């Protein structure tokens, strides 16, 4: 047999978007439409052609024993690829061949029921993943010991902390003994020590000739664990090769550029009133960069030309984090231009984001021009620029001396006060 574990050729997946009728999801609506159509009263509604290629002509090969990374922003097609490989959904075109006992798991804790005890859930989850009962019984003690939940194994998992829950879920998965393992974001497990343990277990899996497909936003984990990786963008493979190179490409090229300029006015986002010239992100000192210290202010800047005088409008920035969550919207509140019609000419507006506000991670910025009342959107440059916020962990940020995962959309340092009454 060949040494290929997974071979993917020309894999594509099309989703239909939107529908012509509001009642599309109801049988009553469907029947009513059918009857009207039969009676000739109303022509059949035209089929909408709104389709989205979530995956387009993706090909790659994974060797046996390889730990293979898949990276990309949200909406890049990662999860669609995983869904196809784990046979949850079917491809529209192309094929994938998988050699070996295979386990697809798109989430840790799949099949867990909150009312059941840890013990019951281990069996349930194992069965859903395709393990035989005897096999689960044989490995049961090992699974529980790895998850470190021995004391709570006969407690319903609804009483578990999220950390315990994920540990047990991962442990079942890690003891499946598959030839090929697909893991999505398992490494976002509560504490650092258990993360290391998981990674150790996964690296073991790799060394025992098992193949792992790892999908994660955690770039250091991808670089450390994977030999090769692919980068997906809008459903297509943008880059494939050694994990280190692909991660670098992802972090530095294309996807996050700290500045965009439109030297050619015909190419710039524009309408009859205003035309964008450039959008940039700078440090306090004016340096254009894609890396920012979490403690330092960040300046967002937009250059634009007013081509028709006499309109009132303001520049706007929308900030999104890497989960695609809108972090905030900022409208220009420079008093000099409030409710003031702008004469023609070139403007540069800068908004300063204070230090210790944004959380760590990638941020992408959309630039807009709008009139607030009556509302009118003039120009929109979606995701024009991006940058990354890092915390070097020196102890004077919101993190203090904590080094674990720290969720949350913003990370301000609040003003804390303590009232203390001695005994």
């Amino acid at each position, binding site marked *: 047999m060949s040494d290929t574990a997974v071979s993917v050729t020309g894999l594509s997946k099309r989703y239909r978007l939107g529908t012509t009728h509001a009642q599309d999801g109801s049988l009553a609506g469907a029947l009513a439409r059918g009857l009207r159509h039969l009676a000739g009263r109303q022509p059949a509604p035209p089929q909408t052609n709104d389709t989205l290629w979530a995956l387009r002509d993706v090909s790659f090969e994974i060797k046996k024993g390889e730990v293979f990374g898949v990276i990309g922003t949200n909406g890049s097609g990662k999860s669609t690829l995983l869904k196809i490989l784990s046979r949850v959904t*079917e491809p529209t075109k192309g094929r994938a061949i998988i050699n070996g006992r295979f386990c697809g798991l798109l989430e840790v804790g799949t099949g867990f029921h909150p009312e059941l005890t840890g013990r019951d859930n281990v069996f349930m989850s194992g*069965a859903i993943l395709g393990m035989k009962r005897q096999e689960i019984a044989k490995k049961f003690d090992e699974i529980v010991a790895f998850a470190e939940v021995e004391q709570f194994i006969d407690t319903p998992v609804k009483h578990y902390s999220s950390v315990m829950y994920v540990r047990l879920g991962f442990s079942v998965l890690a003891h499946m003994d598959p030839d090929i393992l697909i893991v999505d974001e398992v490494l976002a497990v509560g504490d650092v020590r258990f993360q290391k343990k998981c990674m150790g277990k996964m690296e073991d899996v790799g060394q025992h000739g098992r193949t792992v497909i790892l999908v994660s936003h955690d770039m250091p984990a991808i670089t450390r664990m994977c030999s090769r990786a692919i980068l997906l963008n809008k459903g297509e493979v943008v880059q494939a090769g050694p994990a280190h190179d692909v991660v670098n490409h992802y972090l530095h090229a294309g996807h996050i550029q700290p500045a965009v300029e439109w030297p050619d006015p015909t190419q710039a986002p524009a309408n009859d009133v205003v035309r964008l010239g450039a959008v940039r992100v700078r440090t306090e000192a004016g340096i254009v960069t894609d890396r920012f210290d979490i403690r330092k202010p960040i300046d967002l800047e937009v250059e634009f030309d007013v081509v028709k005088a006499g309109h009132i409008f303001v520049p706007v920035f929308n900030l999104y984090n890497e989960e695609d969550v809108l972090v905030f919207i900022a409208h220009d509140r420079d008093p000099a231009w409030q409710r003031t019609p702008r004469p023609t000419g070139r403007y540069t507006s800068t908004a300063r984001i204070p230090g210790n506000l944004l959380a760590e991670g990638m941020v992408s910025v959309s630039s807009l021009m709008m009139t607030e009342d009556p509302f009118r959107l003039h120009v929109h440059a979606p995701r024009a620029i991006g940058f990354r916020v890092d915390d070097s962990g020196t102890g004077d940020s919101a993190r203090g001396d904590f080094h674990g995962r720290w969720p949350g959309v913003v990370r301000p340092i609040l003003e804390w006060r303590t009232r203390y009454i001695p005994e």
Partner: protein
Amino acid sequence: MASSFPESTSSSIVIEARTGYVQVGWRELWASRELLYFLAWRDLKTRYAQTANGAGWALMQPLLSTLIFTLVFGYLAKMPSDGLPYPTFAFAAILPWSLFSKSLERSTLSVVTEGGLIKKVYFPRLIIPIAATFINLVDFAVGLLILIGMMAWYQQVPQWTVLFLPFFVGIALLTALSVSLWLSALNVKYRDVASVVPLMTQLWMFASPVLYPASLVPESLRWYYGLNPMAGVIEGFRWALLGKTAPDWTMMAVSLAMVALLLIGGVIFFRRVERTFADLI
């Protein structure tokens, strides 16, 4: 292009778009029988964990129905009951009827209810409606004990015909499954299917010999009456348990043929549309 999903061997799986008719995948289904058991076990366990009196309530409904039917139809309306005491006559029908209607209702919802699993992991989807149908056997078994008690009270001793009981139980489950294969798959796309089911089972009950004996239906119409598989099942139940009158075998044959037809169609339909489940849920 091959017209079917390539058979997966133990070592190699081919994933591609399926076209044309789809195999049932018996081998895969058989290999997943433990999962079927686990799904059923989980549902039972959680159901009875959440409501301590789960089993008690499960019995209230058929018992109350029997009481009301006996009062209204047995004493007031003097409905004929083939010479049997009306309470056992009614309960012997309500038992398979609630097995059927509960299985149908639960199984119709099952695919959408298990949407979380369907979106996350692959396993033969047919297992879901099958498990949702079969777990109702537990409530049924408890009900059967009560029926035996009632029969003892009325001093009715089952004849050799009782050996046929498992057969009719099986047909009741297969009828529920055959219909819910269609409905559970349709319910993924058209969510109002689930709300039609209670109405449907209610109407269906009046089209079945639950309150009245099938002997009330004119001889010439029996053949058509048999198109409702539950007519055969319920008559068969009364015959197997209470003995008295043998069911109309022509009607029974029509019922069985109907179940077979619905079931085969249901499996094919379900397998055809299951590929879109994960995208639609």
